[in-house]
């Protein structure tokens, strides 16, 4: 189905009866060239790039729930490429470039809104660190500028500039960062992958892998055995549970991250704003609700819900940064399960079992990575070689001592 302004008008006149479902509901075939386990953002993006850029179309995406029911439907929708390390930053900039063309490419309105991302700093040493980060961004071809107090007062006059404990000294500003309508990303990728013949099989849980002589040749599912030349796992918070079926222990802990939405307010917050002295970030959705978040709860969890101390902590951070939101009421909170890796960076790699591939360890930064993660994973699955912007996201970096530790916290997943 093609979307256009004319089509919207035409359907409006005809009572909107001509819209069709975006993807089929096929039963699994006996075998495929590639099976993607996990029908979330990254899995669907992988299927899309495989079918549209690498011309492999005999693919199935198997998903245990409904399409996009995991973290692609639970995140705070921010896109940005403001990383520091040379192993990370080019990858995220590649992702941001893919975001910029995503709607045209998918012919689907995913509301990519480059309204800017602002990271506020509160001390001289933090400014130095942000200058360094800004330079790293510029070197990767991304955009960045340093804003002083005056520019900040113009951009966000409601910040607490009088705060004596955490004085605001300025901010690092990335105008090309912003927000995206998260569900629409999954739907758009699903639509285009499906139109190239990819089978998206929902409510089909992988219960085991078919492995013989160290080679994977398919999966056992709740809808029967499906054979495949290659299997790519891409299941975020469930990574350890799924890979555990073939006895692979991952450098990953699953943690719960909570997100929050306030009641709807008039337009107030320009872009995305982050607090440098605590952990709090906020943007305003198109419906007017303030969408915000902070730290993970900090203990292993698969519960998809968090606890009160973190809610209190995040709200305290928000009020310290912008006291005015103290009067907004909290409408909803929810939790998602993050695959927190040991160094805070992801893995896109082969495994010790031949033809079984793994993509995970996105910590709580997976949403912005969706297009590049899909592209690089598709590249690995199609060619057998890592994409040049994801060449360091390998399993063996832990034993080789080549950690990609953006925060410098060591092997303590709840601190990344």
């Amino acid at each position, binding site marked *: 189905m093609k979307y256009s302004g004319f089509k919207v008008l035409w359907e409006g006149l005809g009572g909107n009866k001509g819209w069709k479902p975006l993807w089929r509901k096929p039963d699994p075939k006996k075998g495929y060239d590639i099976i993607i386990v996990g029908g979330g953002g990254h899995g669907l993006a992988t299927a899309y790039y495989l079918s549209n850029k690498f011309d492999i179309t005999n693919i199935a995406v198997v998903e245990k729930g409904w399409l996009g029911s995991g973290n692609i439907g639970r995140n705070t929708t921010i896109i940005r490429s403001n990383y520091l390390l040379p192993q990370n930053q080019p990858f995220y900039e590649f992702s941001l470039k893919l975001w910029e063309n995503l709607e045209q490419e998918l012919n689907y309105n995913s509301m990519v809104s480059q309204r800017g991302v602002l990271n506020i700093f509160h001390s001289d040493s933090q400014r130095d660190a942000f200058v360094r980060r800004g330079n790293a961004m510029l070197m990767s071809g991304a955009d960045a500028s340093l804003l002083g107090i005056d520019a900040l007062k113009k951009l966000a006059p409601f910040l607490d500039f009088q705060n004596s404990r955490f004085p605001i000294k300025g901010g690092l500003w990335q105008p090309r960062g912003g927000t995206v309508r998260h569900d629409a990303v999954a739907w758009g990728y699903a639509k285009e992958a499906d139109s190239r013949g990819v089978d998206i099989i929902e409510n089909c849980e992988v219960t085991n892998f078919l492995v013989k002589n160290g080679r994977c040749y398919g999966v056992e599912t709740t809808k029967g055995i499906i054979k495949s030349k290659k299997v790519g796992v891409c299941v975020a918070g*469930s990574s*350890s*549970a799924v890979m*555990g079926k073939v006895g692979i*222990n*991952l*450098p*990953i*802990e*699953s943690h719960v991250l909570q997100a929050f939405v306030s009641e709807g307010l008039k337009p107030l917050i320009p872009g995305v704003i982050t607090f440098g002295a605590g952990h709090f970030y906020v943007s305003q959705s198109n419906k007017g609700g303030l969408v915000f978040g902070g730290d993970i709860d*900090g*203990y*292993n*969890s*698969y*519960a998809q819900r968090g*606890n009160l*101390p973190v809610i209190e902590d995040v709200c305290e951070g928000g009020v310290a940064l912008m006291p005015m939101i103290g009067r907004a009421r909290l409408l909803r909170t929810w939790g998602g399960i993050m695959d927190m890796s*040991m160094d805070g960076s992801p893995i896109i790699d082969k495994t010790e079992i031949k033809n079984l591939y793994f993509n995970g360890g996105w910590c709580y930064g997976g949403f912005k990575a969706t297009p590049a993660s899909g592209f690089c994973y598709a590249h690995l699955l199609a060619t057998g070689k890592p994409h040049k912007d994801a060449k360091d996201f390998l399993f063996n970096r*832990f*034993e080789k001592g080549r950690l990609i530790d953006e925060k410098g916290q060591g*092997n*303590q*997943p*709840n601190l990344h």
Partner: protein
Amino acid sequence: MLIDHPLLGLRDSSEFIYMGDAKLLNRPNWRSQNIKSKFVEYGYLRKNPAGIHKELWYHEQGDRSWLVVTRNTVTHEILKVELARNLKRKVNAK
């Protein structure tokens, strides 16, 4: 979450610091065979189960004891709480 401390009774989890899988109590002997891969496993690899998990909590804002908490990661239900020093002494005595 309330953690039923063996000495102090029910205490709020916000008094504690979380350190992850209790397997960290069993540091490999540096003189043993294949020590490199054992330390990679010790330092970086985790079972990370969805279900029963034995894990280390440090009562930093309390009596400064290390606890081994057995908890269900799917429901957050706490099933058992032990003093890590007692467990470790038992292991060492064997």
